[in-house]
């Protein structure tokens, strides 16, 4: 099965992959075509400074904002379980933003920025910032997606980035002579600068390969965005290698492409770090809800099965064992009548009859606990009367029962549920409440039945119920919910407890059972 899947995924062609992201593909193709046109037509258009400088500044402000966003999202959505390479990319883009700022302010035609502005100075800033961007993308393309070894490591990344930025500013502003010459006015770019641009383009192509692998492996749209970004950034570098004048069309396009590249990176990071976690959370929530529903249904079915099983066991116990005990008892009576005047035999018969009675009593108790026959034979009112009498006899509490309305003939599951809930309530009262009396009220109309159990015991604070989930009252709520109703527990220390159970009556009710 796994092998077949692997074969199939290996068979998906490049074309199929491209089809999955039509917008991204069209964008990349369009930009490639535009670049080729500019090159083939040997466009030599040079913008006027008054047009180019504001355009350039505007594009850089936009790039700066996007770079900051990449940093802000990558840094602030940090979570110890997530891939460390995202933090690396975030820090890289912080460096990009800070150095790009220097580049924009040093461009030819801009006022003095610490030292006089010049093409050379702005090219130096620009190269450093683009190198950082390329390295950051490479990192996220190839560094395995593993969590950081320790949370503090991200601060080390941040410190390193800031140190690199400071170093770049210091060298470019105060020691430009230490750097190779990039631009000769009148002649254009030096071979070093052109070579540097191609190296950057190559780094982006390498990054693109990494993202393509990621796309094939994980089919993630985030990798698709980063792949497109890498290609567009590679175009941007190539255009940067081609320009002859700081204000010409090639340099202009190079900046446009860079803006597009940054936006794509931002989209990629936004998808993986902001949107995906929400999608995962949403999916988990749906799954959780579904499983809670399944659990509830299962629980209801189990309760029904248990009730059926109890009914069956208690019936056969009562009928088969009971009849045999009766036969034994009648036989013992026969012996007694026929052995008059034989004290030894009569003594044994006494013992026999006592044992039979004890067996019968314990059997009856077991049967009544399991499934009170009276509930099936005589209905809920008689069953509750019997239960009240039994509890009162066992615990010494006064147990009063007031039935109101037509109570017999209610559905079997409701009847059983109510009886079991009442058993639970009375058990709780006798165990915990130290009550003198309990009042049970059962009222029904056409649509619902309400049972209220009020005791005059010591009560409890609501927190105690939540804390222990105890007093068996959680089960009460669960049972009521399963039957489509509700259970309300009201209590306060010293003020007794009032439990109200409401259950809907669905089926129209027939005549009272026999």
């Amino acid at each position, binding site marked *: 099965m796994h092998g077949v899947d692997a074969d199939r995924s290996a068979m998906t062609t490049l074309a199929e992959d491209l089809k999955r992201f039509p917008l991204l593909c069209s964008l990349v193709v369009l930009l490639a075509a535009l670049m080729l046109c500019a090159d083939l037509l040997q466009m030599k258009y040079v913008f006027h400074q008054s047009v180019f400088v504001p355009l350039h500044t505007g594009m850089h402000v936009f790039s700066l904002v996007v770079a900051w966003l990449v940093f802000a999202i990558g840094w602030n959505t940090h979570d110890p379980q997530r891939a460390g390479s995202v933090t690396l990319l975030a820090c890289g883009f912080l460096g990009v933003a800070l150095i790009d700022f220097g580049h924009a302010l040093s461009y030819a035609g801009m006022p003095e920025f610490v030292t006089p502005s010049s093409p050379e100075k702005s090219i130096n800033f620009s190269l450093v910032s683009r190198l950082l961007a390329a390295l950051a993308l490479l990192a996220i393309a190839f560094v395995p997606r593993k969590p950081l070894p320790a949370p503090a490591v991200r601060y080390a990344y941040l410190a390193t980035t800031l140190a690199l930025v400071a170093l770049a500013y210091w060298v470019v502003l105060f020691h430009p002579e230490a750097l190779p010459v990039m631009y000769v006015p009148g002649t254009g770019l030096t071979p070093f600068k052109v070579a540097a641009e191609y190296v950057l383009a190559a780094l982006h192509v390498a990054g693109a390969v990494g993202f393509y692998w990621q796309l094939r492996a994980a089919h993630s749209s985030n990798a698709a965005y980063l792949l497109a970004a890498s290609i567009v950034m590679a175009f941007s570098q190539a255009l940067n290698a081609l320009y002859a004048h700081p204000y010409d069309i090639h340099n202009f396009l190079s900046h446009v492409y860079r803006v597009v590249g940054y936006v794509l990176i931002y989209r990629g990071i936004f998808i993986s770090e902001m949107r995906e976690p929400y999608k995962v959370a949403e999916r988990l929530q749906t799954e959780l809800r579904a499983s809670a529903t399944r659990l509830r249904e299962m629980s209801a079915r189990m309760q029904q099965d248990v009730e059926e099983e109890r009914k069956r066991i208690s019936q056969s116990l009562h009928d088969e064992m009971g009849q045999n005990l009766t036969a034994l008892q009648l036989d*013992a009576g*026969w012996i007694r*009548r026929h052995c008059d005047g034989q004290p030894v035999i009569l003594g044994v018969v006494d013992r026999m009859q006592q044992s039979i009675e004890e067996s019968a009593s314990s059997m009856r108790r077991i049967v009544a606990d399991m499934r009170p*026959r009276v509930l099936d*034979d005589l209905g809920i009112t*008689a069953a509750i*009367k019997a239960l009240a009498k039994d509890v009162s006899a066992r615990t010494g509490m006064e147990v009063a029962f007031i039935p109101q309305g037509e109570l017999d003939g209610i559905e079997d599951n409701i009847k059983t549920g109510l009886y079991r809930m009442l058993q639970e309530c009375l058990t709780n009262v006798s165990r915990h409440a130290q009550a003198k009396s309990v009042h049970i009220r059962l009222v029904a109309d056409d649509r619902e039945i309400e049972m209220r159990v009020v005791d005059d015991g010591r009560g409890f604070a609501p927190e105690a119920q939540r804390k222990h989930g105890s007093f068996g009252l959680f089960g009460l709520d669960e049972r009521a919910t399963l039957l489509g109703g509700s259970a309300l527990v009201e209590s306060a220390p010293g003020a007794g407890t009032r439990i109200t159970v409401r259950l809907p009556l669905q089926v129209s009710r027939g005549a009272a059972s026999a």
Partner: protein
Amino acid sequence: MLVEDSIVVRRRLREILDDIQQFHIIGEFDAAQDAIAAIDAQAPDILLLDIKLRIGNGIEVLRHVRRQAPAAKVIVFSQHDDAGYREQFEQAGAQYFFNKTHETGKLVATLSQLAAG
């Protein structure tokens, strides 16, 4: 008339009644409908009745006999002795109600009394 679903118990009851000698058993039934049909044919003087039957319920037989043979003495002999049952059968007109395990002595004593009376 004996209306009781358990064969073992029925046999014991028959032996007790034979012992007392004053009784003639006009029929033994384990289902309510059969007993009701027999009551229509021949009203019993004494009805010894169980609550749970193979088919149907002792209360149906009791209600029928009260209509058809108001003079008949009805003795309910059952394992069910919850307050609810006792009350219901006494209200429906049963003269005696004995538990099958605790009150067998009382049952025999009552039968003897009825025989003597």
